[in-house]
């Protein structure tokens, strides 16, 4: 049973968050081990497994990006475990800037940051963060909608676009984290806003 099936949903990316939460609460009441505490060991084991499956499904589906990651894996028949489905890949238009950043980072690691470099890196990090949000918005918005609209033959194309966007996002995330570390800032800013 895949995550969509757990919730009785089709493989669509447009999911109503409030409805999903309602259904999650309903199914939790059905499966949670607390409500099976005085049943047979077999029934308890089943409830435990069903509850774990439900929690995993909810965790993935409630997050618009994790949802796409999961769908990509599912469509390609890959292992559907949690986590990024795509390897980080730099978007072509950012290659030059990335090269500069990597150089500055290497310098920072070797000898610390002077004020100018710090300012430049902070600015760059800000731009990349904006780009990261943009990429996420594109994934959760137009790309998700495109997938839901696409006829069977158009789906591979949409899927490829999603994969490229996921790879870009993963790349940005890595660089932002590296920059954050070099600048001594936390990664809280890019923490998922999934609730």
């Amino acid at each position, binding site marked *: 049973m895949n995550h969509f099936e757990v919730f009785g949903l089709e493989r669509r990316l447009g999911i109503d968050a409030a409805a999903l939460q309602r259904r999650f609460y309903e199914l939790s009441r059905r499966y949670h081990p607390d409500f099976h505490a*005085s049943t047979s060991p077999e029934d308890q084991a089943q409830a435990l497994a069903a509850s774990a499956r439900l929690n995993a499904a909810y965790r993935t589906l409630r997050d618009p990006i994790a949802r796409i990651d999961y769908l990509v894996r599912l469509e390609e028949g890959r292992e559907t475990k*949690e986590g990024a489905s795509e390897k980080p890949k730099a978007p072509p238009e950012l290659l030059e800037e990335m090269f500069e950043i990597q150089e500055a980072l290497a310098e920072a690691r070797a000898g610390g940051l002077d004020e100018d470099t710090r300012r430049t890196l902070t600015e760059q990090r800000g731009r990349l963060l904006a780009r990261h949000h943009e990429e996420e918005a594109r994934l959760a918005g137009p790309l998700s909608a495109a997938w839901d609209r696409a006829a069977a033959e158009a789906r591979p194309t949409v899927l490829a676009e999603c994969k490229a966007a996921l790879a870009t996002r993963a790349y940005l995330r890595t660089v932002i984290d590296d920059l954050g570390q070099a600048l001594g800032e936390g990664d809280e800013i890019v923490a998922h806003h999934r609730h």
Partner: protein
Amino acid sequence: MSRIIGIDLGTTNSLVAYVDDATRLPRIIPDSEGRGLLPSVVAFAPDGILVGDAARRQLVRRPQSTVYSVKRFMGRDYEDVKDELRYFPFKIQPGEGIVSIDVGGRQVTPPEVSAVVLKALKERAEAFFKEPVEKAVITVPAYFNDSQRQATRDAGRIAGLDVVRIVNEPTAASLAYGLHRLSEGVIAVFDLGGGTFDVSILRVKDGIFEVLATNGNTHLGGDDFDRVIMLWLLEDIQCCHHEEIVRSGLDLARDGEAMQELRLAAEAAKIRLSTEERTQLTIPFAEFTYHREITRADLERLIESLVSKTLPPCRRALADAGLGREQIDQVVLVGGSTRVPLVRRRVEELFGRPPHSHLNPDEVVALGAAVQAQILAGGITDMLLLDVTPLSLGIETLGGIVSVLIPRNTTIPTSAREMFTTSIDGQTVVDMHVLQGERELAKDCRSLARFELRGIDPMPAGLPKIEVTFLIDANGILQVTARELRTAKAASIEVKPSYGLSETDVERMVEESFQYAEADVNARLLIEARNEAETVLTHVRRALTQGGPLVGEAERRAITTAREELERARAGQDRDLIREKTTALNHATEHLAELMMDAALKGALGSRRATEIMESPSSKDQ
């Protein structure tokens, strides 16, 4: 289903609660004298084991064999705790993945000490219901890791309890609040107890209590406040009474009794400063009496940096929940240390709203545990708690890097699968190392267990496909299963826990707990009467040395007679006689005590000890 009780096994105090059938509300079960709080103190006296208030009175008299704050050592390795050992008067030793405490020649582990407390609560419940009680829900700090949870469950088993659920303290508290018509919305539970700190962010909706994120510090609480005050007092005494100390050759820092006296005085002063602006502190030593006034500002200066340590976990929990502070509808305070005004101020500043504590912060966790127990017993069907695992779970991969399988704040129960294979032809055993924590390197995380997947059929390298399932159950405790997919054979797994007790250890301790049973009621009362007599005798001897010249010959003779009578009674078995003679001696010395009080500088309190004044703990885990 049979009755299930709810137990809050605290660092400083513990409680037991149940849900009343008639009112459907949770209630604390009092002891025969009407007390709800049971101090989490266990004294291993030569003539029997004491627990609770009786043990608490042994803290100064028998510092080496009276164990307190044992929760700090639950599920911990020697390496984890060695830095703070010097603050404890009892001797803690490294053992096989677990520490043990030397109490007068006998070695006991933290779960065994906690088991004594649990057993006392179990008996209290049995006396209350007049029937055997076998099942319990026990609370733990939300930020407890797998080893600490297992140690708590082991303690329950040693006490003869079937621990049907381990539940997180802040979430238990939210259930108790839930019963009292908590409005729906997002709540933050700030739980600062005697030794641990947790913060949990929950969404309450349609009777579902969904934890969104939790964070904390399992080594931060009122104990630490006491410690900084105590060290400050120590320094002050050494400065103010330098001459007397040098003359008498007293080494306060190494004197277990004196340090306990100081610790209890520090705790008492801290508690008073929650309601008063300033307080007087008097500690009599053999050669001198220390007196000092402490203001709330002094206290706040001392604990400021400790209180600040609670703030980053709150920010992390908010970030993990994906919420800003303005999205929190209510902030609830739990744990005795939230009575400290500075703590309240900091919480209010952080969340931008006044926190509330309508329910007694000492009792609310036990009440919530009783609610959870009632849910499990089928008595409550409209409430459900969906909790999370506080720490990421991962396995060690090449180069000592941790690969995360279950991220922190994942709703439990939850499971993750991972494939393993062999790297050498014909290999039949694969090792794996399971860790918990947020750091990248295995060496910085908590090692939970090393597993050996055995019984793999010899095949060329890389061919076997072993699927390992990691399941975190509703207790937050890990279960691991494995099978070889090519042969569909369940590989036999050997689990070597990195910390904790083995199954055989627990069984042995269950056996032993019967042998070393708590002293029975009569024996206990006799021990208590004798101890009280001893305490009074010690004070009188001291008073006669320091204040003897203040009274006349006749009065001195009367005191000496009363003293000798008590000494004789104490040697006997008649506890009523001991009590009577103790009262008589107290009476005979009243005048002397008054005179000494007058004589003492700046209103010193005379022959009574500061610990006695604060003898009955008025708050839990503060």
